[in-house]
C-alpha cells in the first residue's frame, strides 16, 4: 500500500487479525492529517462548537428553517481545509477514503437513532461534474453505511470558495429536484463536505421541504 499523499510505500504488518481486512488506502505517519473532532457542547442548530451549548448568533438570525439541525465531524481548520482542497480542487477522489471508519462512527453518534434515514448528497453542477468527474458529497455519502439517493440537481453558479459571504447569501436557490425520482418515506440526512455559512444546505433543505419531506437533517465532514 502507498501513502495517498506522499506515495511512499507503507509496509503493513501482516498478522492473523489484519489478513482478512487489509486496507487499500491510507496515510503514512508523516502525512496523517491532524484533524480535530468537534467535541463538547455545540449549537443545537448548526452543530458548531459553542462552549455554553446555546444557539449561536447566525442560527438565531436565520428565518424559515426547513432543516431540523446540522451535525459535523471535524473543525474546519488548516488540516481539514488542506485535505478537502486535495479532494475537491486537486481531484484526489480517495483523499478521504482512509477516514471511512471515523466518518461512520461520527455519523452513528449523531444519527444512529434514525434507522430508516436516507442519505442525500448535496449535488454539484453538471459543469463542475465535468471538471471533477465526481461529487465530493456523494463520495462522503458512499463512505457511510446507509442507502444514498441523489434527489437533487444544481444549476451552475461558479466557485463557492471565491465568493464573499454576502454574495452567497444573496444567491437564489440553485437546487431543484431531479426528475423522475420517487421520494423516500423516512427522514433524510443531507450530506456535504463542509458547512460554512449554511446557505447551501439550507437551500437544499428548502427544496426537499417543499417537495413534502418532513424530517430533514444534515451531516458534514467539517464545520
Amino acid at each position, binding site marked *: *500500500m*502507498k501513502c*495517498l499523499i506522499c*506515495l511512499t510505500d507503507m509496509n503493513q504488518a501482516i498478522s492473523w487479525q489484519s489478513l482478512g481486512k487489509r486496507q487499500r*488506502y491510507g496515510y503514512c505517519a508523516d502525512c496523517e492529517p491532524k484533524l480535530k473532532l468537534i467535541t463538547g457542547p455545540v449549537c443545537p442548530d448548526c452543530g458548531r462548537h459553542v462552549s455554553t451549548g446555546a444557539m449561536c448568533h447566525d442560527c438565531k438570525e436565520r428565518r424559515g428553517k426547513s432543516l431540523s439541525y446540522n451535525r459535523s465531524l471535524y473543525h474546519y481548520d488548516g488540516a481539514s481545509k488542506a485535505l478537502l482542497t486535495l479532494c475537491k480542487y*486537486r*481531484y*484526489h*477522489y*480517495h483523499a478521504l477514503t482512509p477516514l471511512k471508519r471515523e466518518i461512520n462512527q461520527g455519523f452513528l453518534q449523531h444519527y444512529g437513532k434514525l434507522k430508516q434515514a436516507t442519505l442525500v448528497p448535496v449535488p454539484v453542477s453538471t459543469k463542475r*461534474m*465535468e*471538471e*471533477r*468527474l*465526481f*461529487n465530493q458529497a*456523494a463520495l462522503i455519502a*458512499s463512505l457511510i453505511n446507509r442507502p444514498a439517493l441523489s434527489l437533487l440537481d444544481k444549476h451552475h453558479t461558479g466557485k463557492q470558495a471565491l465568493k464573499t459571504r454576502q454574495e452567497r447569501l444573496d444567491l437564489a436557490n440553485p437546487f431543484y429536484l431531479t426528475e423522475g425520482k420517487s421520494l423516500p418515506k423516512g427522514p433524510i440526512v443531507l450530506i456535504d463536505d463542509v458547512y460554512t455559512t449554511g446557505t447551501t444546505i439550507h437551500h437544499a433543505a428548502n427544496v426537499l421541504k417543499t417537495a413534502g419531506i418532513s424530517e430533514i437533517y444534515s451531516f458534514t465532514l467539517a464545520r
Partner: protein
Amino acid sequence: MLKQLDQSIRMVNHYINQQWLTVKKSVITSSKRIQSLTKQGPTLVKESNAKKSLIAKQTDKVKTTLKQLEAIEDTYLLLDGLLVTHEQLGILKKQRPDLNQVIDIRALPAITKTRGFMQCARCLNTDRALFLPFPCGKCHKTDWYCLNCLKYGRLASCQTLFHLTIQHHQTKPLQTGFQFTSTLTPHQERASDQLVNAIQTNERHLLIHAVCGAGKTEMLFRGINQALLTGKRVCVATPRQDVIKELLPRFQAVFTDVPIICQYGGSDDNHKRAWLTLCTTHQLIRYKLAFDVLIIDEVDAFPYHNDQHLIKQAARALKDTGTFIYLSATPRPALVKKRYPTCFVPVRYHGHPLPVPRPYFTSFKHTPLPKNVREAITNERENNRQLLIFVATIKQAEALLPHVQAAYPTLTIEAVHARSEKRKALIDEFRLRTIDILITTTILERGVTFPSVDVFVLQADHDVFDEAALVQIAGRAGRSKDDPTGSVQFYFETYTKAIRKSIKSINKMNVLGERL
C-alpha cells in the same frame, strides 16, 4: 469522441498553415513595396505628401505583421512541446483566444490499458498500485486516475492529455551576449570542445564523466552557447532544487542577452518558457519533444536512478534530432554499459588529486559520538577548516547534535536535513563560516560547494551510503584552489562493499589523473 477531436485538430492545422503562409507572404510583399518606394523616395517625396503617408502606412503594416511573426515566436517558446490536461488547455485558451490558430494540438488518451496493463500518458507510470479506481460521474462507469503525477493535475482514464506543438517554426540564430572569459584547464577544454562538437553534429548521446570538483559547469557554457546561436532550445536538468538556484546566477552572468527560466516544484517560472531552461528532473514531465539539447546533471543521483519513469520522461522531452548530454562523477554501471561516446575528466580544475577517505572501525552501540570521533574532531579543529559531519538519517542528526554541542561548547554547531525549516539559512551561514560544524544528512551530498571543509561520515555502513553517495561526499573536501586538500574520514561498524568500492574508485581516478 477522439475521432471527432482528431478531425477538428486536422482542420485547425490546415487553418494554421494557411494563416502562417499569408502572414509570411504579406510581410515579404510589403517590405518589397517599401523598398521600391523608398528608392524613388528622394524625388517623389517633394512632389507629393500623399506618397509620404503611403510609405508610413506601409511601414506600419510591416511593423504589425512583424509583430505577428514575433508573437508566433513567443508562442513557440511558450507552448511548443508542452503536455497539458483538459483543464490546463482551457486556461490557456482563455488567455489566448487565438490558440487554436497558432498551435497544433494532439490528443493522447490519458491512461492506456492493454491486456490489464495500465500506463499513464504523462508520467509513464505502469505501477498498478498507483492507479486508483473511482466511479466517474460523467461517464457513469469505473474510471482510474494516476496517483503518481496527481500534483501536475489529475488525469483520469476517460480524459485526454494534450500535446501542443508548432510545426511551422523556423529556427533563427539567437543573440546570446556570451560573456565567458575564464580560462579552462586543458582537461576542461577537451571536454568543452567535445561538447560543442556533439551539439554541432547533432550527436544523440554524450556522457561527460568528470570527478567532483572538475568544474563541470564551466565545461558546459561554450556548448550551450553554440546551441543557442543556432536557434536550439536548451534545458539543463538537475535532481536538486538547491543546485538550480545556485546555477541560475552563474548562467545569467554568462548568457547576458538570453532570458533564462528556472523551474522547480513551487517556482514562479513554471508557466513560462524560454530558450534556456534550468529545471529539476521532475519538471521534465511537462514536456514532449520540446528541447534540442538536454543536459542532465548528476545522472546517477537520486531521484533519477531510482525512478525509471524519470529517465523515460527525460527521453521524451528531447526532440528526435536532439542531443542528450549526461554529466556524472559516478556513472552507474547501467549507463556505462550503454557505451555512449564518453568524455573523461579525471582531474579537478585545480589539478590536485582527490582526497582519499580514511576508514575507521568504530562502534556506535553506546553513543552517537564515540571517543575516537571526538578525538579526530579535536585534531582537525587545528587546521582551521570547517567540518561537515554526514549521518544517515534525520533522527540520527537530531540525536547527534546535543552530543557534539556538549563536547564543544565554544563552537557554533548546527544540524540540517530535508525537514529542517531553516535549511537554506543554515547552509548560507555555513558558507559564510559563522557555523563551525554542520551535521547533515545526504541532502548536502552533491552539488553544493564549500571552499574549505573536512568531511566525516558516521555509520558509513548504512544503506543510504552507496558507492556513488560516498564518492560524492568525499568530493566535498578540497574544492578550492587555496585549500586543495582536506581530510575525509569514514566511521563504521562493518566494512561494506560500498565503502571499499568508493575508496578504490577515488584511488583509481587519482592514478588516471596523474598519468594524463
